[in-house]
């Protein structure tokens, strides 16, 4: 019962969403039709982007209301959100994950490390940026990117 009281007390936590403007809509040519399943792939990040991604799907930002959902298997996914610079040991798993997804599929490079290795450029364990191994369709900049930016990027994928 204390849980029930807590639920009643807390109420709605989610922030109001920005209105969707026409210019941002339908990144993937509307192919995904308002439903996007995301598989988050961490190829060697510091977990900062993961925390922000988790927050984006949490109660405050609630990406689910725009039709985005996290899934467990890349076979169920349309979009791979890749975080972190690609380390040597994660090159093959990243490529395999990309091949396991069914087309039409998109790769989103989340954070500066995924875009261009960020602060880890030249490190001995880093093999390169994500675009060196799989074709990247969309980038979300930031170290780490703010959940608002992540949300805006995901809304461009679903078009809502």
């Amino acid at each position, binding site marked *: 019962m204390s849980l029930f009281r807590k639920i009643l007390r807390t109420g709605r936590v989610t922030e109001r969403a920005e209105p969707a403007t026409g210019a941002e809509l339908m990144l993937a040519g509307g192919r995904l039709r308002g439903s996007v399943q995301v598989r988050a792939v961490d190829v060697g990040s510091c977990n900062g982007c993961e925390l922000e991604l988790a927050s984006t799907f949490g109660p405050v930002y609630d990406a689910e209301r725009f039709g985005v959902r996290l899934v467990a*298997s*890349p*076979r169920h996914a349309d979009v791979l959100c890749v975080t972190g610079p690609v380390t040597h040991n*994660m090159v*093959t*798993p*990243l490529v*395999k*994950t990309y*091949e*396991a997804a069914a*087309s039409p599929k998109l790769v989103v490079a989340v954070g500066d490390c995924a875009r261009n290795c960020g602060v880890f450029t030249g490190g001995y364990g880093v093999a390169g940026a994500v675009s060196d191994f799989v074709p990247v369709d969309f980038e979300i900049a930031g170290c780490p990117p703010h959940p608002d930016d992540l949300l805006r990027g995901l809304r461009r994928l679903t078009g809502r």
Partner: protein
Amino acid sequence: MSFAEISLVAALATGAAAIAAALAIGEPRRRTLLTGVLTAGCGAGGLLAAMGVLATGRPVEAEFPHLLPFAGLSFRLDAFGAVFVLVAGGGASAAALYGISYTRDHLSGRSFQALVPAFVLTLLLVPAANSMSTFLMLWELMAVTSLLLVLAEQRRSPNAREAAMWYGVMTHLGFIALLLMFSLLAAHAADGSFAAIRHTSSTMAPALRSLVFLLALVGFGSKAGMVPLHAWLPRAHPEAPSHVSALMSAVMVNLGIYGLVRVGFGLLGGGPSWWWLVLLALGAVSALFGILHALASTDLKRMLAYSTTENMGLVLVGVAAAGLFTSTGHPVLAAAALGAVLLHVINHAAFKGLLFLAAGSVVRGTGERDLDQLGGLMRRMPVTGAMFTLGAVAITALPPLNGFMSEWLLLQSLIHGAQSHVVAVAVAVPVAIAVLALTTGLTAATFVKATGTGFLALPRTRAAEDAEESPRSMLLGMGVLAGACVFLAIAVGVLAGGLARAIAAVGGVTSPAPFRVHGTTVSLPWQIVGTSVVLGVAVVVGVVAISVALRVLPRGARRRRTENWGCGRTQQTARMEYTASSFAEPLVRVFDDVLHPELDIDVTHREESQYYVESISLQRGIKDAFEERVYRPVLGGVAAWGRWARQIQNGSVHRYLAYGFVALVLLLVAIR
């Protein structure tokens, strides 16, 4: 002569010709071919004869008073026996066709080839026996021929001798029980023929009738694999060559049911409720015990043998229900239960025979019997795999195949029987329904395990990787039984009249219509409850329609072959698959109080120090609880008694002469 009589004579002649061919022909290939074809013809003849008797209800009779000294041979094939001859004939033709190429390599010797048609002939004739001597003689012939067949592969398999010994001893213990039983009946009737026994059995004292029933339970129950007399089944059936296993499991065990119903209903004319409650308890325990051991077993053929124990347990539950309903005055329900039993016997023969033949095909193609060493066979042996899957769907009682109809009928008769006001029935029915329900779920788990680990995914060993599909005659044999499964699923209405005549022929059950058929709907005689074969067909049509529709989709024309998703791992090997033992592990854990799995961990330490481990070996196994708790003490007791009794034979000639003298004196005193 009627159609049935002609077919039966033709069957017997063909069978004799098969034996002659096996003994006479020199060249092995021609021997196996001709013997196989002739035995199949014998089976087909039996099948046609049975259909003839079932269609008209007129029995086929024959008497040979001088063939056996004192008693003569007497045969009468009525509609009830015809059901079992039907099963025997169908199973024999499929097994014989299968055997043509199965025995080509190492079982083509004269003795083996001659024994198979002999076995088939006894299977066809036992249900037709009409007197004590005929029955016992044929029963013993059946036991001896099957015993020799079990021994056939003793050179290749070290367990065959032990299996044959268990089988021989237990079948003869059963035979002794039957001999005693028939002696009691015949002594009371002063004549060995079944007709005389039937006439006079109602005047027997109740205690004597109960003794007769219990002896029948022991003798016929052990043949049917009823617990606690089942220990020979999981040993003998796997060791026999696969088409013989199919005959034993699909046809021979049914004769235990035949005997029990014939004696219980026909010769004794029914009995008090406690008989049937005892039978129900034994059948329920057999069913649960059988399926639990099948679930835990990783040997393919042993699993199928335990599954036979389970199915026979369910049949015994049905027979017990029919007996209870008769003794408490519900003839319509009794007919429905008995009809369900007979239908299940026919269905079980079809799908269990198919499963054993498919298992034999796997054993021949890979050389392995253990499910944990198989895998990936669906792509290497596609026909065998499809046949096994069909058999597995049928045995799990799923629509659209035939097992569903008999389970449905049995469940319906039990549910309706629960409305009776008799205490015995009210106690028995919930237990029976619970047993039926539990075994259905466990059968599904067992056969998903068998099909999944044996046939799907990757091969686990070299032997499975190099598997070859079986030759055509084996595929043909399997195809015959698969066709029978499908036919029985779609055209179950064809059997309605025959089953009604069979139940009428048993005697002791009035109003025999087990179910009615209107078009494609099977309905019960007492209310508007039915099920339709159309449903199963609809599922198949639906699958086809959906598969076609998927191709029409924009990207649907072709599938992309892709590597498994293994979380990005670089190597997918067969070691990562689930094995049969791991698949069954959660359920074995749930039932570990019944199964008592034993874990043996052996740690070998290094010589230098106890702190370093050289190797660890783990063995996990499940022993048969009845063997541990019941057989071992009994055998130990018998052995101990034997050791004590050895003191009588101490080698001294004087003592032996004294024994003779004392015995003579006692005899003289007794005769006075």
